[in-house]
């Protein structure tokens, strides 16, 4: 909306003190200049709600996770290891069924977004497997537009899930089976690669594809590899979380109105992630934010080691508290709050704009017995 008072430009430049000066001599007390004085003394209005949490910076109300059919708190840890069987050659086969569905989801209290989803959720299922496993994805397009699944990883051209090679775009009501070996190990993602690309991605067709290292193949760091391998004894002591940084353009102006960790604005601010202060934390972090070239993750009061793309077993950057990621960039963060007092510790995008538009969160550091998960 335009300024209310473009009526005469003189209004913008002058009348106030002019009137003040002239009227001041006519009226005792000069209300105009007095009000000016009064408010100059104050500079800013009092923060009116100091006692409210976060100074009022938040959404109002609650998202109905049941109606959405997914919950960002469960998404932190709901690894999908697929339907597991052995191939004749001894290789582990993991089978998944992905269905593209048009679905309206609630991304902030009362704000609904006409999303395109894999299996009705944004982000889609978190594929978790081990390096060298055979991955087989039965993809059914039940949506209203042609879609694909493009996996970041190493595979044949046929399985790339892009227009122009292999089956190309899968039309509505059609299906295709993607199949490849899981490599390299790391923290990857998958997403639709139909054109127009921006729209297919920001509508919600993406998810995590995590390949745990095979300890047998990494003799020099086999302990570290085992600590990452889901189901191993060494892995159990870790508190692992998936965080997909994403955004939503609700009014289709190619700019996000909502930024989030795992889709729902302020989900982990309104309900902090509880962590046990005695066990190390590992975060699989993926950036799928559309329209902005980068997103970032900043941890308060602590530092972490970072493994770019998760494709190494030694940190690519050590002792940092902020990491910047391009779109589709991802990594693994490792840190511990071992010697800390219990309390709430923030983490958020260090683009203040993103933080204030929803990507703002807390860890709630508690003693072991209090962690229910």
């Amino acid at each position, binding site marked *: *909306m*335009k*300024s*209310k*008072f*473009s*009526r*005469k*430009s*003189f*209004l*913008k*430049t*002058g*009348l*106030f*003190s*002019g*009137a003040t*000066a*002239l*009227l001041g001599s*006519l*009226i005792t*007390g*000069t*209300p*105009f200049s007095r*009000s000016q004085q009064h*408010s*100059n003394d104050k*500079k*800013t*209005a*009092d*923060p*009116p*709600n100091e006692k*409210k949490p976060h*100074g*009022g*910076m*938040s*959404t*109002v109300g609650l998202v109905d996770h049941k109606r959405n059919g997914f919950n960002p708190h469960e998404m932190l840890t709901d690894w999908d290891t697929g339907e597991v069987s052995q191939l004749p050659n001894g290789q582990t086969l993991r089978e998944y069924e992905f269905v593209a569905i048009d679905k309206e989801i609630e991304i*902030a*209290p*009362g*704000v*609904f977004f006409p999303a395109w989803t894999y299996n009705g959720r944004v982000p889609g299922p978190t594929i978790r497997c081990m390096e060298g496993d055979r991955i087989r994805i039965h993809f059914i397009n039940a949506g209203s537009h042609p879609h694909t699944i493009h996996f970041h990883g190493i595979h044949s051209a046929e399985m790339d899930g892009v227009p122009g090679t292999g089956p190309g775009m899968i039309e509505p009501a059609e299906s295709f089976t993607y199949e490849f070996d899981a490599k390299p190990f790391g923290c990857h993602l998958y997403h639709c690669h139909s054109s127009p690309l921006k729209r297919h991605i920001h509508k919600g067709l993406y998810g995590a594809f995590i390949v745990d290292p095979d300890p047998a193949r990494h003799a020099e760091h086999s302990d570290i590899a085992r600590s990452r391998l889901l189901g191993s004894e060494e892995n159990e002591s870790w508190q692992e979380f998936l965080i997909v940084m994403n955004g*939503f353009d*609700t*009014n289709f*102006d190619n700019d996000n*109105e909502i930024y989030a960790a795992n889709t729902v*604005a*302020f989900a982990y601010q309104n309900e902090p992630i509880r962590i046990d202060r005695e066990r190390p934390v590992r975060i699989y972090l993926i950036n799928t934010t559309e329209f902005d070239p980068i997103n970032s993750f900043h941890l308060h009061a602590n530092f972490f080691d970072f493994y770019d793309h998760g494709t190494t077993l030694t940190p690519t950057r050590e002792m940092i508290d902020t990491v910047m990621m391009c779109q589709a960039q991802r990594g693994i963060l490792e840190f511990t709050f071992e010697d800390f007092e219990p309390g709430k510790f923030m983490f958020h995008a260090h683009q203040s704009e993103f933080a*204030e*538009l*929803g990507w703002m969160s807390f860890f709630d550091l508690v003693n072991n017995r209090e962690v229910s998960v």
Partner: protein
Amino acid sequence: MSKWSMQKLPKWIWIVIPVALLLGSIALFLATNPLKPLGVVAPPIEEVTVERTILDEEGIHLTVRVNGSEPVRIAQVLVDDAYWQFTQKPEGPLTRLSSAKIDIPYPWVQHELHEITIITSTGMTFSHTIEVAEPTPEWSIQRIAAYILLGIYIGVIPVALGLLFYPYLRTLGSTGINFLLTLTIGLLFYLLIDTLQEGFEMSQQVAGVFNGNLLVWVTAGVAFLIIFALGRRGGKAPEGLSLSTYLALGIGFHNLGEGLAVGAAMASGEAALGSFLVVGFTLHNLTEGIGIAAPLLNRKTKFRTFVFLTLLAGLPAAFGTLIGAFAYSPHWTAVLLAIGAGAILQVIVEVGTYLYKNTETKSWFTVSNLTGFVLGIAIMYGTALLVAI
């Protein structure tokens, strides 16, 4: 049905039947959805307009009006690109044309710009800019007095000063008077365009459903016709004092609009520094007084008539500053400006008629007249430059 039996029916049946058929056809339309084959699934068109903004120590308070084929739900409110807590009264979805108050406990910063974005449940966004944040004035006798005085300063005083030219103007011959009248038409022509333009600018902020531009055109047209008819109810065009009265009335409406803008701008802190501008404003409005005096030059006029004309033309500015400061709403402002435009148009027509009748050759398209007209516009334009920096 024979002619005979039709005559037997009571007359009112011929109101009932078409109305009943109309209602029936509407019901049929809604029930059968004949638009379906067109493949039209009308998405809910939403519109949220901020009609009033109040800033105080509690934060930001908005009055919004909504428009939509379905009730609009305000889901979230952003201030300066940050989600912020808010309360809505009344709560819940807002039906077409209803309005609500939004209270946002936001620590706004004096003298700075704030951008407010309202997000509806469908993700549509509507933004409203507070150009310069200033605390909204509260009612107090001193403050009211100050606003009235400001209105008097920009409205009454310049008109009175303009009328002070009267004794000198009387010394002019009939050519001089004619010249002055064409000058007045020039001034009025400028005011007409200016007032209409302000009306249209105001209508940009009016909720779309009110159809702002159309509202301005129609109101101006109707106002013109009504005032024109009033002026000619005696069967002839107004002259002398009555013409001057209409002039003062038209200019009064214009000054009301000016007062509204000044008051609203002052209240919202948009009027910045520079006292010379008030002087410029006085000069600009001085010419209005001269115009009002023009039809009175060849007759005797009492002092109290001048007082009356001055108040009629100038005092509305004082009402304007008050309304603008304390009870601002864009659609009423647009309506008032449109009435002003209609009133000014009436005076242009009447002054033109008067001029035509008093011109011996009955040819009023003379070099002298044209010069007066152009000069009138030029004076207004020139003095407007003084206040437009």
